[in-house]
């Protein structure tokens, strides 16, 4: 076992072990629990960065242990260019979520459990991305769900949290079961669990492709929360404590995209996948328009941004459905940019709630005079999600939009572009009502903790930087293409 292998296992293990440590001994170390979790998230990010030179040299770092050799089951991890953008997103979002939580979560006799579960949640996502066999993938996939469910159940913000958690768990678990059925079908046909062997197995049984592909798309569609599988998202995002919401919206939603890219899109050729293209594009456009429409009429500010995620996932699904160079690279870039911007928007929402104690958009107003720093961050986040140039999302949106015109479905592509005016509409309503219109009923502003401000401002800077300098990220993401749809580009 070389150093690279140890580091790769450590990306996950450091979080899992810390999580266990905090669960067992967290009570006795008290307020140090949050600093330990922050240190762990930074360490994990640092460990992840170690792989960049290897990837740039064309290597694919991997670790394999035999687990159940007779059944062909291995403990196998791998990092390639396809996993890279998603792992980057998860690691970054975890850091921001923990920074945000430092002052957001009160230090009490339960707080160590909160951080332990947050790390477990993050480990679930990292494990899912690094896994190179279906059993490990499913294990971490479910770990992610369990950890997040417990977080919502115990730290939910209202009395409805039990119902919300039940809904979240059951619906996303149903999605996971669809993925599981697809995995079992693949396993029974191929007898192997390794990702690289799945492709050959599927090619040997082409008649199974429509069913397996549909199961994957439906299962991962639930995780992406595209319409009509989005029903869990607004409630869960609005109910979860803000750091968990940031993790859910900015990182966990991208797991659905990763699943689609990793399984149906990597295992099938462009020709075989083409049967799913049009449905994906249609669902993408519907999600974009529907999510934005709901955000336009919703009153709870946290739910408005939650619906915005439904809309943004529509862009991503549409981009993937086009099966074009621009569409796939654009969708992957959109995952990263969306994570940054959505984390920023939720940070701003948390800031508003912490400062005012209000969540109803009708009860808010005139915040630009009361908190100029928050206004700048929120306006930049809003402009970014509207697709204004030189801010993060513009770069990916441009590619997704252009990809639609490289397909025969020009009408759908036009609808996709024109439908995005609704994004402008709901963001304008949001910013206008909260910041720039006067409120008859005066309300006071509470002091907001430093950690919330730090996370928000850092994300704002990241939004601008990512928008101004798109090249580095693009050059990394574009390397995933040879792994997708037979690499015929």
């Amino acid at each position, binding site marked *: 076992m070389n150093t690279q292998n140890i580091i790769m296992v450590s990306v996950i293990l450091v979080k899992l072990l810390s999580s266990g440590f905090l669960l067992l001994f967290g009570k006795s170390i008290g307020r140090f629990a949050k600093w330990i979790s922050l240190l762990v998230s930074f360490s994990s990010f640092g460990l992840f960065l170690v792989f960049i030179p290897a990837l740039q040299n064309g290597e694919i770092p991997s670790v394999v242990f*035999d*687990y*159940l*050799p*007779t*059944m062909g089951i291995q403990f196998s991890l791998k990092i390639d260019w396809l996993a890279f953008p998603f792992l980057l997103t998860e690691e970054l979002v975890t850091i921001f979520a923990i920074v945000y939580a430092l002052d957001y979560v009160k230090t009490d006799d339960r707080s160590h459990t909160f951080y332990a579960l947050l790390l477990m949640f993050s480990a679930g996502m990292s494990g899912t991305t690094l896994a190179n066999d279906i059993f490990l993938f499913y294990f971490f996939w479910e770990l992610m769900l369990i950890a997040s469910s417990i977080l919502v159940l115990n730290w939910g913000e209202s009395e*409805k949290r039990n*119902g*919300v958690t*039940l*809904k979240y768990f*059951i*619906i996303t678990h149903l999605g996971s079961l669809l993925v599981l059925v697809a995995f079992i079908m693949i396993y029974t046909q191929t007898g192997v669990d390794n990702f690289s062997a799945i492709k050959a197995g599927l090619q040997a049984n082409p008649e199974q492709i429509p069913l397996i592909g549909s199961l994957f798309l439906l299962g991962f569609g639930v995780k992406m929360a595209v319409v009509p599988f989005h*029903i869990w998202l*607004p*409630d869960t995002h609005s109910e979860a404590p803000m750091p968990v919401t940031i993790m859910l919206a900015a990182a966990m939603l991208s797991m659905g995209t990763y699943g689609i890219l990793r399984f149906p899109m990597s295992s099938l050729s462009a020709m075989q996948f083409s049967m799913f293209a049009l449905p994906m594009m249609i669902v993408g456009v519907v999600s974009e328009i*529907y999510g934005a*429409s*709901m955000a*336009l*009429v*919703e009153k709870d500010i946290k739910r408005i941004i939650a619906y915005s995620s439904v809309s943004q996932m529509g862009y991503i699904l549409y981009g993937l459905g086009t099966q074009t160079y*621009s569409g796939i*690279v*654009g969708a992957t870039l959109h995952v990263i940019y969306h994570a940054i911007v959505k984390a920023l928007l939720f940070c701003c929402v948390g800031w508003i709630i912490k400062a005012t104690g209000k969540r109803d958009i009708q009860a808010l107003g*005139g915040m630009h005079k009361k908190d100029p720093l928050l206004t700048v961050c929120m306006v930049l986040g809003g402009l970014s999600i*509207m697709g*204004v*140039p*030189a801010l993060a999302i513009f*770069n990916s949106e*441009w*590619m997704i*939009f*252009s990809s*639609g*015109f*490289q397909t025969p479905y*020009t009408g759908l*592509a*036009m609808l996709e*572009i*024109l439908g*995005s*005016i609704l994004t*402008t*509409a709901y963001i*304008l*309503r949001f910013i*206008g009502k909260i910041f*720039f*219109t*006067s409120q008859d009923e005066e309300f006071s502003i509470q002091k907001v903790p430093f950690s919330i401000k730090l996370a928000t401002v850092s994300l704002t800077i990241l939004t601008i930087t990512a928008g101004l300098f*798109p*090249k580095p990220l*693009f*050059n990394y993401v*574009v390397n995933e293409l040879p792994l997708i749809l037979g690499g015929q580009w």
Partner: protein
Amino acid sequence: MMIDSSSLLLIIFPILLGCVFFFFQISRRKTRKLLPALISILCFYSTVITIFFSKAPFSTTFSWHPAAGNMGMTFERSPLVLIILISIALFFVVLHDHRHPQVSSSIQISLMLFSYAFALTALVADHFMLRFVALEFVGLCVVGSVLDSPHNGTSNWNNVRNILLNFKFGDLCFLVAIFLMQANSGTFNINQNLELAAELSQPNQAIITSCLLAVVWVKLSIWPLDWWVKALSSLPSFLRTWYADLLLPVLGVYLLYRTSPLLNANTNLATFFVILALSAVLIKLLVSKFNNRSLPHQQLIQIFSSICLIPLAALGMQSLLWAFVIFWFIARTAFSIYTLRHEHSPPFSPARPASLYFASLFFLHAFSFLALLHTTHSNFLPNLVLIALWIIWWLLSIQSLNQIFVKERNLAGETFLEKNKKALELTTASLLLALVAACITVLVVYLLSLYTKGKGIWITAIFIDSSSSLTSAAYGLIPALSLYYPLFHHAEKVRNYLGRLVRPIRVKNPLVWFFRNGQIKDPLNQFSWLSSLFMSAASFLYKTIEQNSVDKIVSIFQKIFSFLFNQIEKLISKELWENTLKTIVDSSRKLQALHPGFLRLNQFWFLLFIIILVLVIFNQSIFYIFPSG
């Protein structure tokens, strides 16, 4: 090399000064006026130097977005001429800052300078992404200026919202056109795309042309895409003039100029858009008359003059169109600057030299007249449309003339004959002044077209062979005269009459509900009823599907679970498990009661089970004893 780099200074100078204004909040009014004026002069000179001393158009490329390839700017003579004119316009606009009571902020000045730099970038860009980004930033500068107005927060924000939505619509249409062209050509280069667009299928060409014209519509503020102009009301006058009358229209017209080959290839579409534009002016005219809205006569004339360029663009003679664009911009600038200069004095006050005002008005009419004459001469439009164009031109001209007589009639202490005599004198003086201005402009346009296009264009040459065109113009006069009186002097009666006519239709109209019960305050405000319709649909969906979905889902689950529990409980109830366990324990006890050795046997099996479990966990090779499939 130095000359080439002077081209880039065109963009760098205003941005640098804009940054100074933005970050240092310059409050001295004189400095605020002088520095931008200085920059506009500097830009003017650097453009002149570039045009006259550069042997070949300077071009520069850079890379920003990897998927868009290299972006370039080419400083060709045609856009540079426009840049000279825009710089002159900026100079005059800035000089008028101090004349008005409404004070502009340092940020607004900085945004004005940024908008100038971005507009210049848009004009010289030969890459669609660069042009799109530049146009977006111009739009953001407008929005920022309105947001910085010291007005009531809510109304200010409503203005910002309307401007952004209006611009966004134009931008999205532009994107559709760009991507359709790019899908065909594989590049974002503007020249290549526009050349190859002619090879596209007819429906695609129609979509591209329509989308590009939608952008032109927005920039020229033609109904129904003109919300943004009304929303600029909170800006200081000179900024409003800069954005609404000069900068954005010139960007729109430049786009029209570039789109003209496509329009020429789709004559039916071009005719449709001319009719649409004509209807837009008519609706504006009727709305302003019937609703007693304060839509100034000047604004209508400006819109109409812009519309006159659309049929010219469809003629396919780009050099001629270019010459007319120059004429249009000079006439428009002169008119806008004059109205800006006297905006705060009453329309016919002695402080306002009436002859100059009317001369600038007639100057603009002269442009429209020449443009319409060319259109009529080309026989490109159906006669009915041509006559309609001429009717509107006459209506607006008669109204302008009538203003002179209204002004003179208001003078007290003079006889009827004296008043009319004065009016005639004023008319003659204004017309003569307008004629002189038009002649000079025609000469300037000739020289500029000679220098930029290599061939001088006399836009008045049409008079030589235009007897039939002049007849068409004359045909328009009679209906115009018959419409003028009821339209302009008995607007209320006509409105009531038309109201009675359309009432039966309106009652049956499904939109009536929205007009009566929805959020629509003004049925003529298309933005209001469109958004109201959409919001009603979205609210319906939200209330029926999305709202309280957690409760709905939980109650569904509750029903399912209670059904399952009630039905299956009988089989797997607690009692069943307890009874089973009890039976096993009882039988085990009975077994032990038979012989004590049986107790040890039970313990043995239990121990064996644990050992197997441990072995399985720590050593998977145990599975070798079970042959796998």
